[in-house]
């Protein structure tokens, strides 16, 4: 690592983000009728820590802004300023701005002009007498981010007006700065008033400076110690060596154009999206969407680190230590393998080795596990805002936030859960009057619950709203051609219909739920994760949507079976039971389609031999071994030749090594070194249904 500070900076950003999240959670949890003093202290401490740390790590803009929040909170905590709903909103906006600050500071960018403007308005509101201040049209100020290659800093410094009256020696300051490296300066006299209006004791000077130096930013901050008032000083690192300098930087360097002029020129330049909209080539919404998408990609690119509890690492270190001992035991035993003692030692060591390997595997997988709270924590805010917007009073409860999930899952769950929660507030919840009329409390409740159940993680979004309207779903399903006319879908099938692409029972899509991300995205993501969706809904009582996910992506509990000469693996999660049946139990329908009657229910029989076109020499006796599987509410009985056993398998992607195969979700390597394919149950059912349709 070239910059030793970089790793601390990462930790700083993570901690600061957590603190901001904590502030938000505390703010949302405040009961304005009876504010807990401890909550106010917590808020204050969080703001104070963010301020202190960001100053230490060289992010003065973050520090300056958090300082404003801290100063706002001080009288509140002392009890001299009341916590009002208005103030609460302002503080929430403040948390958003802190996040934006951190987000951009992490990338070495300045705060965007939009947020800059929002920040000024917010500060004015926080410091004002309560009369709301409204945003002025966005100021045309695009801060220059970085200058030419090389190490050092681009500095914008606007002298405090009272610098002379405080006896500050600006010249001395510049001399100190020049001692740190090579200094270039461009004075900016634009804020200088006319001669008649000028008070010679006021200082109206500003400078753009470029300091090439290998010294840390702390040294630069030091020089400005007595004149930095937050916003009047911006210090940004120069772009690293090797990156291509920007045109403005070169012009500034070679042609003597001042940074202030470049800024002014840049301010006249419009964003691409805006120009395209003016040309009538694209709708503003499309630009907004594209920007959102771009942002998402950016976010994905960065969130590739995971924080691991030291305790977990310590345990791993210990385990490796134990393994080394076992290895020594094995080496020793192998030298006297011909004696009885050697044999005994060998088997003891192997036993130990087996246990350690298994534990090591578990622990290493455990590193990828993070608490589900990481996704859940964003929802209180969202529900709060949504409820306010829709005029609904909704309370969000969370359970099992400490439940751990694979990090990949956490990332993939953000969109589906966001959608489910939005949906619950937007469509599931009734308005207060309707609720009271139905004899329910005016405030609706949404419960987010995570729990670990028998090798699976259950994540539930449960509301006490109106429940699914199955008549309307049925009608819609028929209209959209999702249900074949004449069939009578079960309740479960109807419930799951809401996850079909192109399904929406709400005619006028609100801007909240209908963002082009349908419920089918939920199903899509959950399927990619190897999980399934369950829906329970009682009319008038509410709806529970449960995502059932495997513990991790990499390991699967499987049922190994033999079909012909090949071994296949069923995900145990989709296996309901297995049984042997006599030829007469299986009935043929529509030619060669087969079904079996099981406890009064007709279930299609899938002959894996035929579907996978694998085996020739299968059991000719006619007796069949059937494995009853279920996926997405559909069942099938799969005919196999032999059940080999139940075991955990490590999933290898078939796609990355070979190509995508319908009905197969991956491959694994068995203990004897052979490759077995893992069956994709819902894919197989679809495949079979497709084959049936073609033949019919």
């Amino acid at each position, binding site marked *: 690592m070239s910059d030793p500070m970089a790793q601390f900076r990462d930790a700083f950003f993570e901690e600061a983000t957590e603190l901001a999240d904590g502030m938000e959670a505390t703010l949302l949890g405040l009961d304005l009728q009876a504010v807990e003093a401890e909550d106010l202290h917590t808020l204050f401490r969080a703001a104070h820590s963010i301020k202190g740390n960001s100053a230490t790590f060289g992010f003065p803009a973050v520090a300056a802004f958090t300082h404003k929040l801290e100063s706002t909170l001080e009288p509140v905590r002392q009890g001299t300023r009341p916590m009002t709903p208005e103030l609460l909103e302002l503080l929430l906006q403040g948390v958003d701005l802190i996040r934006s600050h951190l987000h951009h500071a992490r990338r070495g960018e300045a705060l965007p002009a939009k947020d800059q403007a929002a920040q000024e308005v917010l500060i004015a509101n926080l410091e004002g007498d309560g009369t709301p201040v409204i945003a002025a049209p966005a100021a045309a100020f695009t801060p220059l981010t970085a200058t030419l290659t090389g190490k050092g800093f681009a500095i914008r410094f606007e002298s405090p007006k009272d610098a002379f009256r*405080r*006896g*500050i020696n600006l010249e001395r300051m510049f001399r100190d700065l020049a001692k740190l490296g090579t200094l270039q300066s461009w004075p900016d006299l634009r804020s200088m008033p006319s001669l008649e209006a000028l008070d010679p004791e006021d200082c109206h000077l500003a400078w753009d400076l470029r300091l090439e130096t290998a010294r840390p930013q702390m040294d630069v901050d030091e020089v400005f110690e*007595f004149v930095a008032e937050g916003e009047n000083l911006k210090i940004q690192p120069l772009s690293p060596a090797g990156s291509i300098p920007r045109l403005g930087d070169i012009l500034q360097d070679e042609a003597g154009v001042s940074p202030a002029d470049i800024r002014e020129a840049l301010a006249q330049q419009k964003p691409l999206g805006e120009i395209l909209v003016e040309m009538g080539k694209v709708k503003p919404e499309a630009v907004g969407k594209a920007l959102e998408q771009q942002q998402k990609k950016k976010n994905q690119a960065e969130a590739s680190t995971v924080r691991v509890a030291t305790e977990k690492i310590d345990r791993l270190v210990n385990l490796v230590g134990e393994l080394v001992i076992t290895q020594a035991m094995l080496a020793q035993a192998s030298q006297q393998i011909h004696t009885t003692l050697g044999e005994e030692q060998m088997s003891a060591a192997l036993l130990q080795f087996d246990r350690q390997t298994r534990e090591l595997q578990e622990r290493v997988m455990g590193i990828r596990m993070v608490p589900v709270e990481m996704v859940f924590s964003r929802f209180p805010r969202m529900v709060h805002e949504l409820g306010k917007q829709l005029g609904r009073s909704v309370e969000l409860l969370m359970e099992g936030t400490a439940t751990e999930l694979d990090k990949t899952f956490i990332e993939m769950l953000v969109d589906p859960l966001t959608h489910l929660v939005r949906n619950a507030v937007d469509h599931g919840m009734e308005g207060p009057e309707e609720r009271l009329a139905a004899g329910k409390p005016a405030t609706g409740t949404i419960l987010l619950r995570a729990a670990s159940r028998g090798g699976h993680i259950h994540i539930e979004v449960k509301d006490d709203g109106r429940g699914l309207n199955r008549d309307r779903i049925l009608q819609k399903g028929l209209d959209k051609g999702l249900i074949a006319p004449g069939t009578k879908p079960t309740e479960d099938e109807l419930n799951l219909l809401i996850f079909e692409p192109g399904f929406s029972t709400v005619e006028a899509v609100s801007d909240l739920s209908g963002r082009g991300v349908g419920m089918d995205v939920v199903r899509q993501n959950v399927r990619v994760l190897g999980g399934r969706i369950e829906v329970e809904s009682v009319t008038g009582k509410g709806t529970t949507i449960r995502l059932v996910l495997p513990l991790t992506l990499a390991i699967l509990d499987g049922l190994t079976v033999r079909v012909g000469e090949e071994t296949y693996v069923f995900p145990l999660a989709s296996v309901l039971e297995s049984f042997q049946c006599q030829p007469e139990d299986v009935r043929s329908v529509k030619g060669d389609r087969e079904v079996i009657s099981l406890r009064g229910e007709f279930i299609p029989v899938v002959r894996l031999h035929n579907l996978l076109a694998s085996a020739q020499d299968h059991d000719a006796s006619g007796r069949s071994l059937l494995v009853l599987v279920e996926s997405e509410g559909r069942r099938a009985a799969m005919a196999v030749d032999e059940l080999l056993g139940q075991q955990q398998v490590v999933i290898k992607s078939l796609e990355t090594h070979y190509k995508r195969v319908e009905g197969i979700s991956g491959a694994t390597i068995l203990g004897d070194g052979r490759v077995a394919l893992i069956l994709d149950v819902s894919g197989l059912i679809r495949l079979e249904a497709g084959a049936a349709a073609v033949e019919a």
Partner: protein
Amino acid sequence: MNRCILTVDDSSTMRQMITFTLKGGDFEVLEAGDGVEALEIAQGKKLALIITDVNMPRMDGITLVHRLRALPEFKFTPILVLTTESDASMKQKGKEAGATGWIVKPFSPEKLMDTVNKVI
């Protein structure tokens, strides 16, 4: 060049430490025990710098800064205040009164010299 510094502190040990350090830096040093005494000593003198504590009997440091800035001969003279902690409000009060900067106590002789060199 004027190298006369006035140091104001009610603690004599503190005054001694400051005087000792500054003399080592080739400065001439005057001492005062509180704000009132400081104003008397400063009267009619040319000073390069004034270093004052905040909490003192008779007249505190912040008031002293106010009074000094009101005098034409000290309008632009650098003044440093000694604050006991990194208390933002005290720095702010000092700034508003017209102080040039501050030194946070406890400080080392090196820190004192660095800060002095920063303002003169």
